[in-house]
Structure formats: structure tokens, C-alpha cells
């Protein structure tokens, strides 16, 4: 079936080439048989259905050694070949290989045992996890107060984020695991393992720089309140206002419009000691108060924190 499929593809490609090739554009006519043939090919193609998803390693020209070599080079990192290879082998893959070998042994007794990988990347994953955790703690706690830092940490170490980074570093095809297509959690674990591998091959400093370049940069252009938001912003701000040195915080209604309609809009300012510290809008006064508090938190807490840290 698949040979037939490939033949169809090759043929239709050849036909299209003759039609769309600019060199042959000044050919007077396209032969009468071309259209019905293409139609028939298309019909057969549709009947067979879409081509099954295949692993990149199943293709003929796949060269795992070259890919492994190129992976480190294109990121500008020095990986130890052995360790990098190990970091890409998952536990599930090892088990799969062992089962396969057992099956082979039972069926054919004479064949020589094929070499299989014994070691998987589980201890590299653990090591990588620890490095990521430590580095993010260090990096984020310099920049943000405790609660947002925690939320950002969680955001960056979530499977979705790690797998996103791993996928775009080009790890998807290199991973050796049982599941196909590769699941997000597997991608995320592999990223951690690669960090572990980098630590073992070129040291902690390179690993941290790697994280800075590829993981921490995911925060750029993101709004902090998309990731972390206090549940009741006004109460939260009142709670922290004192320790930040803002006394007698009071909300005042600055502007309002269309108050009697569904499109009502209020503007509330938070004042402390007759100074405006945050401005918010909303469809109700309560809402506007909360957004004013959010604005104040952003202006005072997050930005001042950065300044304070920069001075230290």
C-alpha cells in the first residue's frame, strides 16, 4: 500500500512540475490527459486517507549521530556525547527495548543479542530539576516579591512551558521514548534531563546561562498579572500598604460616565496622604477599586522592589 502511495506522490509531483515549471510556461498546450489523470490520482489519494504520522527516525536519511552532534553545536553548548545521548533515553524506551529483545530471544535462538541501552535519564532528570529550581529561585527572588515570584516559578516549571521550550529547541525528534507523538510531559522531562547533562558536561555556570537564555526569556513581553493576580486586590493592597509605608489609603471616585446604563464606567483613584498612588477603571465602583489597587501594586510593589534590588 505504502509503495503505491509513494508512487502516486512521485507521479503527481512530476505532473505538476511540468505544469508549473516556468521554463515550460510558454508551451502551447497542456495535454488533454493531464487533468483527468490528476483527478484520478487525487481520488485514489483521498480514498486511502491521510498518511500515517511517522517518526522522523523512520525516514531513510535519518542520521542520529549527526543530529546529536548538531544539537549542541547549534545552541553553542559543549555537550559530552555520552551524557547527551543518555539524557535523551527515557525509562519507557529501555523497557520497550528489553521486551523486544526477550521476544526475539524466544523466537530466534541463534541470533546474536543486539546491543541495547541500559541506562536511562532518570537521574539526569532529577539533577536537572534541582538545577532549574535553584536557578529560578535565585533569579526570580531578586526581581519579585515572594508571592509573584512563586507564581512565576510555577509558571516557568509547568510541563506546558518546559515542553514548549524543548519543542522549539528541536528535541522532539531526538527523544527516545515509547510514546509517539511525544507527550508534553516527556518533552518537559527531557528538557530537565538536558539541563542535567549540560551541568555534567560543562559545569553549573553554563547550565544556568542556558536557563537564562532559553527559559527565563519566556517571561519577556508577558504581563505579570496574567500569571499572578491577588484574589481580592483591594484587600491585598490594604494589607501590604502599611509595611510599604502608605498610611490612610482611601479610594476616591474621580470620574464616572453613563452610570445609569449597562455601559457604566467609573474611575477610582487610590489616595494616600493626598497623593495619587493608583488609578483604576471598571464597570462598577467595586471593580474600579480593585483595578486601582492592582495598578498601585504594580506601580509601588513590583517596580519599587526592582529598584530596591538594583540599589543593593
Amino acid at each position: 500500500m505504502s509503495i503505491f502511495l509513494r508512487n502516486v506522490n512521485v507521479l503527481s509531483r512530476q505532473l505538476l512540475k511540468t505544469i508549473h515549471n516556468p521554463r515550460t510556461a510558454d508551451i502551447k498546450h497542456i495535454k488533454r490527459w493531464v487533468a483527468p489523470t490528476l483527478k484520478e490520482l487525487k481520488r485514489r489519494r483521498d480514498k486511502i486517507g491521510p498518511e500515517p504520522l511517522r517518526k522522523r527516525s523512520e525516514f531513510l536519511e535519518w542520521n542520529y549521530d549527526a543530529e546529536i552532534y548538531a544539537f549542541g553545536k547549534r545552541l553553542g553548548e559543549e555537550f559530552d556525547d555520552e551524557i547527551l545521548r543518555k539524557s535523551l533515553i527515557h525509562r519507557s524506551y529501555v523497557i520497550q527495548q528489553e521486551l523486544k529483545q526477550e521476544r526475539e530471544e524466544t523466537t530466534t535462538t541463534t541470533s546474536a543479542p543486539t546491543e541495547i541501552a541500559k541506562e536511562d535519564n532518570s537521574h539526569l532528570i532529577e539533577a536537572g530539576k534541582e538545577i532549574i529550581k535553584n536557578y529560578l529561585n535565585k533569579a526570580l527572588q531578586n526581581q519579585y516579591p515572594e508571592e509573584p515570584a512563586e507564581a512565576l516559578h510555577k509558571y516557568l516549571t509547568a510541563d506546558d512551558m518546559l515542553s514548549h521550550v524543548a519543542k522549539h529547541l528541536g528535541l522532539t525528534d531526538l527523544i527516545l521514548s515509547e510514546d509517539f507523538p511525544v507527550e508534553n510531559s516527556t518533552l518537559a522531562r527531557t528538557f530537565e534531563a538536558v539541563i542535567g547533562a549540560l551541568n555534567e558536561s560543562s559545569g553549573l555556570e553554563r547550565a544556568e546561562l542556558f536557563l537564562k537564555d532559553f527559559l527565563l526569556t519566556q517571561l519577556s513581553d508577558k504581563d505579570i498579572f496574567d500569571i499572578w493576580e491577588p484574589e481580592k486586590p483591594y484587600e491585598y493592597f490594604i494589607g501590604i500598604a502599611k509595611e510599604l509605608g502608605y498610611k490612610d489609603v482611601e479610594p476616591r471616585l474621580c470620574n464616572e460616565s453613563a452610570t445609569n446604563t449597562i455601559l457604566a464606567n467609573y474611575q477610582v483613584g487610590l489616595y494616600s496622604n493626598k497623593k495619587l498612588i493608583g488609578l483604576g477603571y471598571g464597570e462598577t465602583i467595586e471593580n474600579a477599586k480593585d483595578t486601582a489597587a492592582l495598578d498601585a501594586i504594580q506601580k509601588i510593589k513590583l517596580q519599587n522592589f526592582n529598584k530596591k534590588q538594583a540599589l543593593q
Partner: protein
Amino acid sequence: MSALKRVQQWATFARIWHIYDATWQNPFESAALLKKYLMGLHKPIYHPLADCGDHVVVINCSEIALPGDEWKKRVYFHHTGYPGGASWTLAWELHKKNPTLILKKAIYHNMRGNLQRRYTMERLHLFPNESVPDEVMKNISNQIRQIRPVPKRLDHYTEDEVKEFPKLIDYPKDYIIR
């Protein structure tokens, strides 16, 4: 979208209610002014497809002032659609029938005839005098400045003010004012 971004959008496209006093104002000049607020042309975010127009409440529509002899000469045409259904109404007659109609028509004709025009007109609230319902009055948060100042009529000055007004000459005692 974070809460801050959401309310930023909300505030950007907030509808403002303006009030305009039509006393002694030319309705045709006023129309050009009010149209800007109704369509949102006064906002730098204006786009013909964006719904960014404001509401305008016009009071004292019955007090408008038409220039020259427009009251007598301006004619409003209407056709019922049946043969012989044409009718011509003078401005003063129309004003007598409905004191808000001259201003309404002036604003309506000041805008281009597209699908949006009728919806934009929905945002215009005309009142013949100063009495505006409370639920409308609560929405208002801005006043549009009148185009020209309202002059004070001679019979609205008090007798003392008239007496103390500086005069160049006094009429002679035997002068007879007809």
C-alpha cells in the same frame, strides 16, 4: 487578559454622555458640532468601523435661532409615496409641530447616508425644554460649550440696570417718543 488590560479597553471605549444647550444657537452650525461627538470623531481612536461614538443630550431645542429669514424661507419636503403625496412645510410650521425636528433633521443630514447613520442618531436625545428625565440626567458627565454666547434681551434687564446704563445724551424734555 489580565484585569488591568480588560478595564483599559473598557475605559477606552466608555460612552460619555454630553449635554448641549441649544438656546439661541444656529441648528446647522450646532449639527456639525454635535455630529462629531455622536460619531466619535473627537477621539483620536476614531475608526468608521469602531463603535466609539458618544451620547448627546440636547436641551431647549425649541429655543433655537435660525439665521436671516430662514424661518420663512426654509422649506422641508416630504412625500408620502402615493401620487400627489408631496408636501412642503416651512421651517416655522415644522417648528410649531415639533420643536425638536429642525435640529434632528439638521444633524441627520450632516452625516453621510450609510448604514451607521440611523444607529448614530439613536444616541441623540432631544428635548424641547429644560425638563430632562432623571434617568437620562444621571448619565451625563460633560457639557459641550455653546457655539455663540446667548445675548441678554432688553426686557430681561432690570429697571435699575437700564437707568444706570451710561448714556451719551438725554432726550430733551419736550421730545416726543412715538
